[in-house]
């Protein structure tokens, strides 16, 4: 008799009669618990099913739970109950039953979820700034000053520094930044001396008032920090409220993703600051005839007709671009390709470069970065050991897997010189298996058969949704 555990949440729970019906029809012993009332011992169950909210239960999350519960990760399956209920409510019970049957029919390979913790020490390249040094020290993270000449090599989840032989758990790159203005101005516009930066305006506002003057701000989309947005909202609001000045802010996009930033934006708007969304490529400027101001020509997103506004001051915020950093020359033997640049995917770890253990530190983000690094260095990552396997008989040592693996998880070793997957580095992306021309690599629990059988479960006329 198969003993099954279902972990349900508040948003979704099983009606009792379903359980009884499934137990009776299939000869299972089903225990239903919720997250607050989890069993102490998970090892006694043949399968552990998690109900609902499936995008919270990614492969990484399942590995982490398996490690905590000390069970084989292949035993843990997530049934996306909410989604099935919403998208295909009629066939819910039959889908659920088929899902259990399919899960029970899959073989259980010996796989172990293991936590791998990196060394509590970092290397900062190209140079360690005092601000970063201070914040890392505050969080108890050791730093290594890079010697004048060195090379790096991966060592499990760590990096080994040569010639000293020291291990570091992470590498932080403080890239160089370049400041440039989003649009170019003619020399005659610059001669008016009315084109200023935000720091100038911040100082001037303390010295004098701008009574009844018109002030325009130009704020680019990229590379403007939260602090600078906050400053722009505050200054513009002061100019309107204190000096009764007319202020408009030309933007491509307003950043409000920050603590209380949206509130400050709303406050500035309600005080009378005008925000206009414009296309910077179509923005034009020229000096006024008396050279005491600047005429700004722009078309807003709402109204495509061109407008012209005469301003007494034009305040500019520069665009800050991170210059790419080449890390490849520091690595001996390891495959680190291309240039390190920040990733624009909210689903990856913040400040991640896309390469495990290598982080990017933009200026003024030292505090946030140090929190991410601390978490990474203390909690480490959970990896499934034994999930990926190379069939030595089939492997022809073509090295396709070695070239394909983004995580450097393939090692060539043994007397017969065959490929092997290092479970501590493997992220289960499956690229090696999908590119192997000899079909020698298998990621257990994620093979073609599992896929196709899961897909065909829905039947010809029955819509269904499953998590593989």
């Amino acid at each position, binding site marked *: 008799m198969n003993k099954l555990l279902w972990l349900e949440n508040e948003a979704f729970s099983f009606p009792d009669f379903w359980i009884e019906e499934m137990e009776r029809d299939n000869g299972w012993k089903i225990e239903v618990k919720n997250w607050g009332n989890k069993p102490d011992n998970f090892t006694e169950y043949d399968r552990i099913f998690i109900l609902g909210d499936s995008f919270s239960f990614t492969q990484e999350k399942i590995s982490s739970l398996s490690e905590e519960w000390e069970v084989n990760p292949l035993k843990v399956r997530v049934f996306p109950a909410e989604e099935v209920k919403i998208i295909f409510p009629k066939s819910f019970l039959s889908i659920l039953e088929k899902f259990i049957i399919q899960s029970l029919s899959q073989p259980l390979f010996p796989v172990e979820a293991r936590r791998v913790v990196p060394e509590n020490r970092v290397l900062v390249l190209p140079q360690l700034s005092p601000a970063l040094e201070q914040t890392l020290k505050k969080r108890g993270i050791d730093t290594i000053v890079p010697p004048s000449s060195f090379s790096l090599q991966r060592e499990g989840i760590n990096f080994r520094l040569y010639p000293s032989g020291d291990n570091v758990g992470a590498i932080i790159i403080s890239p160089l930044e370049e400041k440039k203005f989003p649009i170019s101005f003619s020399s005659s516009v610059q001669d008016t001396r009315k084109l200023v930066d935000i720091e100038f305006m911040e100082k001037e506002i303390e010295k004098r008032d701008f009574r009844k003057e018109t002030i325009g701000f130009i704020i680019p989309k990229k590379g403007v920090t939260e602090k600078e947005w906050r400053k722009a909202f505050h200054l513009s609001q002061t100019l309107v409220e204190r000096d009764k000045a007319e202020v408009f802010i030309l933007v491509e996009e307003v950043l409000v993703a920050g603590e209380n930033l949206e509130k400050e934006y709303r406050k500035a708007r309600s005080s009378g600051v005008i925000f206009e969304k414009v296309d910077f490529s179509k923005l034009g400027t020229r000096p006024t005839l008396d050279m005491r101001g600047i005429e700004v020509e722009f078309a807003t997103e709402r109204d495509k007709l061109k407008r012209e506004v005469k301003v007494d001051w034009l305040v500019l915020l520069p665009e800050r671009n991170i210059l790419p950093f080449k890390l490849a020359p520091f690595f001996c033997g390891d495959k680190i390709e291309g240039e390190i640049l920040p990733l624009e995917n909210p689903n990856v770890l913040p400040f991640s470069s896309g390469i495990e253990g290598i982080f990017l530190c933009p200026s003024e983000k030292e505090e946030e970065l140090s929190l991410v690094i601390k978490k990474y260095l203390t909690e480490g990552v959970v990896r499934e050991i034994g999930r990926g396997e190379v069939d030595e008989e089939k492997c022809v040592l073509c090295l396709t897997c070695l070239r394909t693996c983004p995580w450097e998880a393939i090692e060539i070793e043994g007397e017969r010189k065959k490929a092997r997957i290092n479970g501590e580095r493997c992220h289960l992306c499956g690229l090696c298996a*999908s*590119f192997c021309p000899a079909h020698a690599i298998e990621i257990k629990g994620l093979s073609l058969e599992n*896929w196709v059988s899961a897909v065909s479960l829905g039947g010809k006329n029955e819509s269904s949704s499953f998590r593989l």
Partner: protein
Amino acid sequence: MRVVALGCDKSGYPALLRWGEEGSLPFDEVKIFSLPCLGLVTEEVIFRILENSDALLLAGCPLDSCHNQKGSQGVYLKVKRVNSLLQEADIPKKVAIAFVTSGKVGEIEKVSEELLGREK
């Protein structure tokens, strides 16, 4: 049209679910599945799925910021190859790929229009 949709659990699957929940699916039937990374998808898997469906829709991380660096790139090449083989063999089935971040369904809508042959 019967469509199978596969999404990586980092980006594609949440976006596919939102697309499904928003309700105006342009197909007769859609089956949505999640997997750790699109890099797992092989040509063989694509053909096996197409045996029982009219089209395959893949959704994964953006090409330059894939969670597994090259997962989306790898499958993109395979999709191109499979589509050219299908065209060569005159099989009226299609595979399309949408690069999304979780919760953004616009790209999936665009790709589903492509699958229906109503390119915008």
